[in-house]
C-alpha cells in the first residue's frame, strides 16, 4: 500500500493468490509442548504462513482452547524473548507471524519488540487488542523494523472504517468471521463470507478469514470469497489432546487438500 513495496508476508500471500492457490495460515500457541515441531509440520503440510501465539495472561479475544493452551505455555515458563529466540531456529520456508496482545509489546517497548521480531525472522505481527486508533506508536516502530502489522476487520465495522483499516493493514487483512472470540464452531457463520466480500470490494490486499474456521469444509466455504483462512483453535486442540506435531501436520494437510480441491473444481 501507499507505494511501499510489499513485505515478505504480503508478497508470499499475493504470490499464492496469483498461482490460484487459497492461502492457509495455521495458528500454534508458542510454548505449548511440541509447538516448534508443530510449526515445522504445518509448514511441511502446505501452510502459506504460520501464526505463532505469544501467550498473554488475559487473552480477551480468545475462547477456551487458546486460553487453555496459553495457560499451559505460561505455566511451563514461556516468555516472549524465549519464544522469539526459539523461532529464530525454525526452518520452515514460509513467513511467520506473531499473534499476541498489546501489553506484551508495550511492556517490552515498541522499538525493542519490533526489532526483536525482525531479528528473529518474524515477518508480521497481530496485536488482538490494539485497534487502528491506538496503533500508531506500534505501527511506526513496526514499519521501521520491517515488520508487517496485520489488522483485524470485524463485521461490526462501517464501510468507512473498513477502508481505514485496509489502508493501514500490512501483510494481509484479517477478517473476523463472526461476532465472538476464537474457537471451533459447528458451522461457518454467514458473517464470514459477508465480511470477506465487503473487504474484497475495497482492498487488493489478501483477505484471510479467521475466528470460527475449524474444518476443511468451513475453510472451503469461506474461501469461495476470501483469499484464505486462519485456523487456530482446531490446530491447537490437537496439540492439547496429545496428537502432537504429527496430528497438526495431518490436519493441516487435510485443510490443504480441501482448499486445493476447491480451487481446481
Amino acid at each position: 500500500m501507499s507505494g511501499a513495496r510489499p513485505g515478505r508476508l504480503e508478497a508470499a500471500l499475493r504470490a499464492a493468490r496469483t498461482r490460484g492457490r487459497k492461502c492457509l495460515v495455521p495458528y500454534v500457541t508458542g510454548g505449548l509442548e511440541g509447538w516448534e515441531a508443530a510449526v515445522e509440520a504445518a509448514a511441511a503440510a502446505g501452510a502459506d504462513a504460520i501464526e505463532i501465539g505469544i501467550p498473554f495472561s488475559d487473552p480477551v479475544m480468545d475462547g477456551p482452547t487458546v486460553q487453555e493452551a496459553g495457560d499451559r505455555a505460561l505455566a511451563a515458563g514461556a516468555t516472549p524473548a524465549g519464544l522469539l529466540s526459539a523461532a529464530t531456529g525454525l526452518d520452515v520456508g514460509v513467513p511467520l507471524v506473531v499473534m499476541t496482545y498489546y501489553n506484551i509489546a508495550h511492556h517490552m517497548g515498541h522499538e525493542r519488540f519490533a526489532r526483536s521480531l525482525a531479528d528473529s525472522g518474524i515477518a508480521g505481527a497481530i496485536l488482538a487488542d490494539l485497534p487502528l486508533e491506538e496503533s500508531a506508536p506500534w505501527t511506526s516502530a513496526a514499519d521501521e523494523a520491517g515488520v508487517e502489522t496485520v489488522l483485524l476487520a470485524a463485521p461490526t465495522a462501517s464501510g468507512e472504517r473498513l477502508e481505514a483499516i485496509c489502508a493501514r493493514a500490512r501483510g494481509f487483512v484479517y477478517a473476523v468471521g463472526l461476532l465472538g472470540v476464537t474457537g471451533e464452531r459447528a458451522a461457518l457463520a454467514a458473517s464470514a463470507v459477508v465480511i470477506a466480500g465487503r473487504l474484497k470490494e475495497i482492498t487488493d490486499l489478501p483477505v484471510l478469514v479467521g475466528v470460527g474456521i475449524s474444518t476443511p469444509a468451513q475453510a472451503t466455504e469461506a474461501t469461495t470469497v476470501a483469499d484464505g483462512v486462519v485456523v487456530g483453535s482446531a490446530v491447537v486442540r490437537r496439540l492439547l489432546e496429545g496428537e502432537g506435531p504429527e496430528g497438526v501436520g495431518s490436519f493441516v494437510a487435510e485443510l490443504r487438500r480441501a482448499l486445493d480441491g476447491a480451487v481446481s473444481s
Partner: protein
Amino acid sequence: MGMTEPTPEGRFGDFGGCYVPETLVPACQELDRAFRAAWADAAFRGRLNDLLRDYAGRPSPLTDCPRLSAELGLRVLCKREDLNHTGSHKINNVLGQALLAERMGKTRLVAETGAGQHGVATATAAALLGMDCTVYMGEVDVGRQELNVFRMRLLGAEVHAVTTGSRTLKDAINEALRDWVATVERTHYCLGSVMGPHPYPWMVREFHRVIGDEARAQCAELLGGDPDVVVACVGGGSNAAGIFSGFADGDAELVGVEPAGGAAVGRGTPGVVHGSLSYLMQDEFGQVLEAESISAGLDYPGVGPEHAHLARTGGARYENVTDGEVLAAFELLSRTEGIIPALEPAHALAWISREREALAGRTVLLNLSGRGDKDVDLVMGLQE
C-alpha cells in the same frame, strides 16, 4: 485542578485510551456518542435523578461520627453510600448505564462483579427496566460471597462462575468482555468501575459524581466549607472517583487507599489490560499479576486511568493498607458508631486510623461506599 473531560481519544494525561478487540471499537464509539447526547439531555438527566431519589434513596446522608472521632483524635464524617438501595454506591452508575442502554435500544446487560455489589446492582437495574442480565463472577468470589450470588439469581440474573486464571474480578472482566464480543449487537456491557476502554472511565465517574456533589454541599452546610481530607478506597476506583470529583477543584487533600495485595498505583507500572493504559501489577514480561486481598471488591491488579493520572500529577495521593489493618477498622466502626462497613471502605478507615497522629485535629471525609452485611460471614470465619 478539577477532574475534567478526557481528550476525545479518552486520555487523562498519559493514561486511558480504548484498547479493545476490533469487534468492540464501534460499540465503544457508539457508547461515547450516546453518553454525550444523553448527558446533555435534560430529560435523561431528569429521569436518572428521579430514579436516584425515588428508587435508590438519594441523597445519601452525611453522618458525623463523634465516638469514632473521639477515639481517633480527629473528626470523621461518613458519606453514607451504604444506605443506598442495594447497599453500595454501585447503584448510581448502574442506573445511569441501564437507562443509557435502554436509550440505545439494547435489551441485555452483561456485567462483571467482584464482591457481588456491582452484580447485584446491575441485576437490580435489569429487573427494574425489564432487561436480561448476565453476571460473571470469579469462582473464588462466588465461594466467598454466596449470598450475593443468591440475590442476583433472585433478581432474575444469570450468574456464571468464572474458572479461568485467578478466578477473581480480573478473570470475570475477561469473561464479560468475551461475552460482549459475541453479543454486542443487543448487549450493553455495564462495566462496574472507572476502568476499561473509553468512554467507561469518564462515564462511570460522571455517574458517580453525584456522591461528590452531594457531599460537598453537605460539608458546606455542616462545616461551612470543605473538609481537610477526602478519603476513599480504590480497587478500580469508582467510589473514589465519584467523591473526588466533587472536591477536585478545592483545597481538600484527596487520598485513595488500595489494598496492599492489589496496589496498582503503589506497586504497578504502566500497562494495558481491559481496555486502558494505566498502572498495572505485572511481571517482567508484561503478564498481569494476580491481586490478593481480603476484599473481593478490591481484588484487582489494575486501577482506573484517571487515578493513574491523578497519582502522576499529584492531584490525589494513593496509600495502601494490610488486611489486618482493614479488619481492625471494620470492627472499629462497628463498635464505635453502630455502622458495619463493607471491607472495601474499611480500607479507607484503616488508613485514617493508622495515620491518626498525622491527621490529629483535622476533619476527614470518608466515603463509606458500602455496607458490611455481605462480609459478616467472612469476618466471623476469620475470628473463629
